[in-house]
């Protein structure tokens, strides 16, 4: 469904939604009367007839013509009047007394390249009534009548503002471009800064081309720009939508499929029609499509506001809202339903909305990068802590094995054996040496074979049998010995089992059972007075001994987030169930 929706959205972008109105007034046609001329115009009326006399040879069905009579008062011939027109407004035709004064060229000739408004002198030869006929064009550019001096002043003003607008837009896009390029250079891992820098660089390049298009007759700019501009806008809006969708973690596959379908259709359409016609006809559709989809996206984001407000999505929402508002005003002004004071078709203010949107994306990217950096630092800190924790625990374990409590007690016990059973004492020393040798080999590894682990356990049991005067045994079920396990995991469990188990002259049996792959159950008999607690799951915050901490840290180190440890007493034994998943 999402693919179809995005395809329809794409088609909306590439289609023209407007028809022509059946009725027109001067205002509908964007005819703006300048005051100086009005002072000499004694009568105005609109001829409701749609036919000019004689009808223009190029008249097409459905294209409105407006005929009106301008009566001039005495002395009007002194007025140098004229009309300000868009040179690229191909549809506009202007007649004075059935003589065409605009366009100057013959239909089919090459159009003038630049888009700077042209002043066409308006002949007022003598006092009397003159029939003027205007044939409206589809682009609905404003046609302004007035004194020539005013019109040239207006042309200069428009030229000035066009320069300011285009340079302002170019400068803003270039600023984004350099800013994100610098951020990328400082943080090469954040490639999205490079992508965004390229994107805004393209925006700046398009603005330059537009600037060129406005003032010069550069054929490259004039014939490439319209297609490039709308394809680029279409692509960039889709990209921003993708980013917006990503910021709310929506499903993006549909968006990409929709983009591909729309792109393919656009290429097919382009093959059928010349780019300038295609753009002129579907340009407004593009804007409307953008507005509709962005509106839908805004609703979607509003629904997920709690999720968005927690991150930087609200900035993107703000940018989208600005773009929507400015774009809506621009379109309404374009179709004449709304008086938008900043609207002039040559400089669509929606572009400033687009700049706002780009700014919002830029800020969102910067905030996301900052958050990602903070997360990375936190994560790195966590890893450092975990690593240092593991190192510390390894050290503690080594210390425990080779320092006071284990080694010194073992040596004290060996002295006792030498004093009382000198013939057995060397066996005790030998077992101690073997255990240390195995332990030293295994301690630095992250995983060892189960047979090595069991060998270490049995050496330990042999030593503890001397020391504790117990008979220790380790029974294994389903263990092949080839399994890979974290080192000293079961050794630590046995050590705990001995410490908290029966003390003297007892048969003590430890059981290790393999339930499934990487899933083991270990049990040890409880000693007198051992606490009878309910089974506890991993993550329990109660205080625990160094041995259990070591086991958990080892498991987390080897299988981060993919392990479980449950331990507790049952039927006179302490059961420990360990399982993990290998990545």
């Amino acid at each position, binding site marked *: 469904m999402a693919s179809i929706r995005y395809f329809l959205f794409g088609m909306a972008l590439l289609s023209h939604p407007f028809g022509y109105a059946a009725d027109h007034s001067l205002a509908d046609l964007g005819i703006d009367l300048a005051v100086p001329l009005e002072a000499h115009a004694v009568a105005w009326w609109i001829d409701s007839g749609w036919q000019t006399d004689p009808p223009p040879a190029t008249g097409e069905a459905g294209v409105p013509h407006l005929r009106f009579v301008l009566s001039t008062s005495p002395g009007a011939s002194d007025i140098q009047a004229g009309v300000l027109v868009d040179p690229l407004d191909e549809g506009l035709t202007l007649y004075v007394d059935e003589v065409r004064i605009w366009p100057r060229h013959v239909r089919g000739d090459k159009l003038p390249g630049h888009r700077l408004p042209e002043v066409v002198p308006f002949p007022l030869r003598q006092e009397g009534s003159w029939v003027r006929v205007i044939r409206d064009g589809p682009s609905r550019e404003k046609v302004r009548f007035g004194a020539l001096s005013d019109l040239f002043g207006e042309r200069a003003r428009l030229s000035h503002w066009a320069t300011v607008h285009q340079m302002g837009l170019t400068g803003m896009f270039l600023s984004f471009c350099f800013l994100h390029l610098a951020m990328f250079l400082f943080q090469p891992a954040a490639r999205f800064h490079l992508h965004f820098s390229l994107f805004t660089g393209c925006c700046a390049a398009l603005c330059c081309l537009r600037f060129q298009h406005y003032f010069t007759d550069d054929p490259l700019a004039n014939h490439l720009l319209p297609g490039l501009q709308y394809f680029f806008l279409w692509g960039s809006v889709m990209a921003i939508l993708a980013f917006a969708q990503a910021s709310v973690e929506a499903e993006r596959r549909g968006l990409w499929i929709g983009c591909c379908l729309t792109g393919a259709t656009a290429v097919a359409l382009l093959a059928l029609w010349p780019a300038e016609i295609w753009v002129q006809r579907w340009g407004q559709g593009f804007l409307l499509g953008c507005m509709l989809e962005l509106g839908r996206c805004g609703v979607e984001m509003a629904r997920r506001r709690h999720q968005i407000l927690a991150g930087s999505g609200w900035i993107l929402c703000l940018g989208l809202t600005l773009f929507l508002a400015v774009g809506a005003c621009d379109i309404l002004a374009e179709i004449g339903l709304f008086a938008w004071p900043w609207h002039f078709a040559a400089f669509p203010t929606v572009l400033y909305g687009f700049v706002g949107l780009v700014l919002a994306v830029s800020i969102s990217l910067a905030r996301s990068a900052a958050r990602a950096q903070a997360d990375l630092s936190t994560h790195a800190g966590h890893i450092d802590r975990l690593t240092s924790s593991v190192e510390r625990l390894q050290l503690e374990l080594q210390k425990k094995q080779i320092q*006071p409590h284990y080694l010194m007690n073992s040596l004290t016990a060996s002295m006792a054996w030498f004093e009382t059973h000198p013939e057995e004492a060397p066996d005790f020393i030998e077992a101690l040496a073997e255990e240390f040798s195995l332990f030293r080999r295994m301690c630095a590894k992250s995983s060892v074979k189960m047979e090595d682990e069991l060998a270490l356990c049995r050496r330990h049991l042999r030593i503890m049998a001397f020391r504790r005067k117990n008979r220790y045994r380790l029974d294994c079920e389903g263990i092949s010995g080839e399994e890979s396990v974290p080192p000293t995991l079961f050794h630590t469990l046995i050590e705990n089992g001995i410490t908290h188990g029966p003390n003297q002259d007892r048969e003590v049996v430890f059981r290790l059972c393999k339930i499934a792959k990487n899933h083991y159950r270990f049990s040890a008999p409880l000693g007198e007075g051992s606490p009878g607690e309910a089974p506890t799951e991993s993550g329990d915050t109660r205080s625990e001994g160094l041995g259990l901490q070591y086991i958990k840290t080892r498991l987390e180190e080897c299988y981060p987030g993919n392990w479980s440890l449950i331990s507790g007493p049952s039927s006179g034994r302490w059961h420990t169930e360990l399982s993990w998943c290998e990545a």
Partner: protein
Amino acid sequence: MHILVVEDEPVIRERNARLCKDILGDDLTRMHTAESLPEAQQWLERHPPDLLLLDLDLAGKDGFALLKQAVAGAFHTIIISANTQFALQAFEFGVLDFIAKPFGKKRLEAALSRVSDRRRSVCSHTKYLAVKQGSRLALVSLDTIRYIQGAGPYSELYSSDAAPMLHDKSLERLEKVLPPNFERIHKSYIVNMNVVESLISGRGSRYAAVLRNGERLPIGRTRYKQLKQRFDG
């Protein structure tokens, strides 16, 4: 001498008991061994010994809990432990000696001799005295104690920030674990020399130590000369 050996490892426990018997011979009147804290506590309550030989790590449990209780008792305590990092802390609680494992017979002999030796330790690190107060133990810092007065088999501690407290140890036994700034000035008094302001000599060979708060404590005739030398020096 009545000795209680507390040790969780049977081989070492039996060795400690055997060595004590060898060293003390007929002087050993009673010997008991315990493998756990609860068992040791029960024995201490019912049959207070003259000496406790205590391992600090008993089946993974902290022997310090028993140590605090032990040093508050009338008997002396000697620690036998592999955890030498706790030695200083143990001395601060007032143990008579700390034997690090592994140890030979001579080391134990030296420690046991300190129990019967009337001379006091010259390098005591005791910082606190544990005093039983009902069911709990209070640790009294030696810095706050002005003097200790003998009260038969017990002692009375006079501190600057609390009412007099009764300690289970006799003055003789306390003297052995107190640091050098505590001086026996009379058969019934041990004084903290840091709070002595002056020594005075009265008529009829009566001597006294004047404390900073104005209290006067009697000084034994035989001890005055030595005390005067120390005070002047």
